[in-house]
Every structure is written in C-alpha cells, then in structure tokens.
C-alpha cells in the first residue's frame, strides 16, 4: 500500500462497552471495601512508593473500575505493601488487601 504519510490515532476514550471488568469483579469479591473509595487521594499523598515512582494507587483503583487494565500488572508491582495508606484512608478501605487482591487477579489472568 502506498504510504501517504498519514496515520490513524488510537481512540483515547474509555470504551465502557468493550472493556473487561474482570479484575474489578475479582477485587470486589476478595476485598469489598474496594467499592467505597471516594478518590480523596490521601493514600497517594502518603504513599512511600509514590514519592519515587509514578505509582498512584487512587488512579490504579479507578482504572481497574473502568476496565482500563492493560498496565495493571506493571503498576501494582510498584507497591511495597508498607500499609501507610491503610492507616490514612478516611473511608477505612483495606488498601493493603486491595493490592494483594489485584496482584492475585493479574496473576490469575
């Protein structure tokens, strides 16, 4: 095919109809407090890993809930399981167990 120098950009939209919510469902089962996050960001503010890497736990949770899971395995590996976020969360989300369940989910895949 003749290359005219044009290319197609990938669609950036979250495609809620196509995305697979398998990980989200697994984590919901294993740690039901996964559902009650209000995205205040306290976990990410206190995160030891987040100071030195681009790890963002709040964002990771929301991405899983939207089925945007292509980078989940790589992201979740950045957590050191120190548990500071669990101490800080105002909604009592068991963040440490959420991480463990995400790890289980991505290994199951």
């Amino acid at each position, binding site marked *: 095919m003749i290359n005219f120098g044009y290319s197609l950009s990938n669609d950036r939209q979250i495609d809620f109809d196509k995305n697979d919510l398998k990980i989200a469902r697994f984590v919901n089962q294993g740690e039901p407090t996964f559902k009650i996050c*209000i995205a*205040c*960001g*306290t*976990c990410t*503010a*206190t995160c030891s890993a987040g100071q030195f890497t681009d790890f963002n736990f*709040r964002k990771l949770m929301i991405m899983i809930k939207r089925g945007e899971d292509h980078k989940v395995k790589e992201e979740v590996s950045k957590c050191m399981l120190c548990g500071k976020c669990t101490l800080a969360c105002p909604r009592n989300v068991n963040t440490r167990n959420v991480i463990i369940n995400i790890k289980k989910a991505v290994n199951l895949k």
Partner: protein
Amino acid sequence: MEKKKIVVIGGGIAGMESSSFLAAMDFDVTIIEKADKLGGHVRNWERLFPTMRLGAEVLDFLNQGVEGRVKIVYNTEITDIKKKKDVFAITTGDGKNIEADAVLVTTGYDLFDARKKEEYGYKIYDNVITSSDLEMLFTEGKKILTADGKTPKRIGFVHCVGSRDEKVGNAYCSKVCCVTAVKQAVEIKDRLPEAEVFCFYMDMRMFGMHFEFLYKEAQEKYGVNFIRGRLSEASENMDGSIVVKVEDTLAGKPLRMNLDLLVLMVGFVPSEGSNKVGKMIGLKTGPNKFFKTQDQHTLTNVSNIEGVFFAGACTSPKTITETITDARAAAVTVADYLHDQPLGRRTI
C-alpha cells in the same frame, strides 16, 4: 386555665427561636442555659456565610422574640430529669426543681477536637489553627499573623477535619465547613490581598442558596485556589512554617507545599450537653451519635420519649438558617402535643 409549662434545654439559636414562638403561643417557657448569655456558638462567629452579615445581627433579631416573653435560667446545668405520668421534674445543678409538661432539647453541637487528627499537628505546631480560632481573630478584630508575628504569605484551609472520616468515627459530612472555608478564605484575601490562599477539599458541597455564588466570587474576585485532595499529613519546618502532603487528584500527582498558616475546618460532633441530657432521659441516638428523630422526613422534631422534642443541631449538623427554621417547626410540634395532638397522632 393555667398555662402549660415548657422547659427548653440550651439557649443557643435553636432554643431562642423555639422559645420565642412557644411564648408567643401563650405557653410558659423557661430556657435553661449553662453559660451566662444566650446565643451559643453564634456569639463566637463574626460574619456569616454566604452574605457576610454580622452574626450579632441575627442574635439581636432572635433576642427581640425572647426578651420579656421567656424565663431564662443562666449558668445552670441540668443534673436529672424524671418523668411521672405526663409531667417532667427537672433538677438543676443548684438543687432546684422545675416542672414541665414538655421538654424541648436544644443542646446543639460541639466542634470536633482537632487534636484527634494528630497528623495535622493542631496544638503540636504553632502555625496550625482551627476555623474557630481564625473566626475568633476576626471577632476580636485581631490581625492575622503567624506564631512569630509575621504576616502570612501563604495560607491553607483543610476541609473535612473530623468529618467524613471513619478513622475518628465520624462518617457524616458536617455540611457547613466547605462554605465556611470559602467565606474565611475570602475574608483573609480581603485583609491580606497579597497572600496566596489554598483550599484542600474532597468535594465542594455548595448546596445552599448563594453558596455557589460565593465559591465563584472566591475564585473570580479574590483568586482563592482550590486543590482537590485530602491531606495525609502536615509537618513543621525549622522556621515554623508548615509543609503539607496531599495528592492533587485532578492533576494525578502527589503535591507538597509550604504554608505559613494552616487552618483546619473542624466539623460538628454531638455536644457534651446532648450526651449528658440524652443519658438522663434515655434519648436514642442514630449511627452518627446525634439524637435520633422518630422519622427522617416527617417526625423531625419528635424523640423516642413522649413529651420530649428536639430542635437544631442536636439531631444533625445544620446551618443557622436551617436551625432557625427547625426551631420554629419544633415549636409548632410541641404546641400540637400540648393541645392533645390533633396532628401528632399521625403514624408513618
């Protein structure tokens, strides 16, 4: 016929306005107030959201209804309440007994003790104050200065301190802190136009009429900055300034910032007086520890004990407007009860 007697416990704005209405309906009303003045928390509040009118103006208005109509017992706390048939016997701290045909509980709220959020450093770091401390500076006409007497260049407000926080056992929203933060941010910019002001919020709950207008004015006219994120901690620098850690959730990145002064927006908790009075008569509380009304939508002034009613913030956090409205509703509910309940016998 002898007038029916009502004892109102607490002389804050809910007690004042319900007493005025009950007295105007020709009942014999006595307010029992623990302090030496009426007005409760509003006495400590210089200006009120969203209009910046003086709190004293509201108190003056409410006083006109109370004066000469209502009996007031100052500097007095209740030690016991007993119900015999339809009559209440109320014992006060000085050993006196007062009889009543109905009791209206208007024991209000206390402000959350910010020391319980140790990670924000109240009473640990000198430049961390509460919204109530700041308002006191306004009320007393004092300058806003850092602990070492300098004009602060950068000031932060932390929303939801002691509210929406299950780590301190308060899952509820205190309702008034968001708009109070915006009000106080504007007042600071009025006094210190050079200062940078930041509000750290989880959600901006601008539910009231004109609240959104004040929010927009804070952005447009005063240049107040809003950052969506809840502080994980505040710590002190060598020079006494405060460094806060927060995620800017809209930028998606952790953020740190030095501030000269940090203001904690403390929420509502049930008052100590509410807890004491509640135990004396066996009043039920809800999951948030405020008094439980008989129905959320309809019987909003009715307690679990016949003849005992509620008004104001003892049942949930309320604005001044809501408290005054609730106080009037409570007055009508009490009057109905004392008039053989043509309406109070309805069930839901």
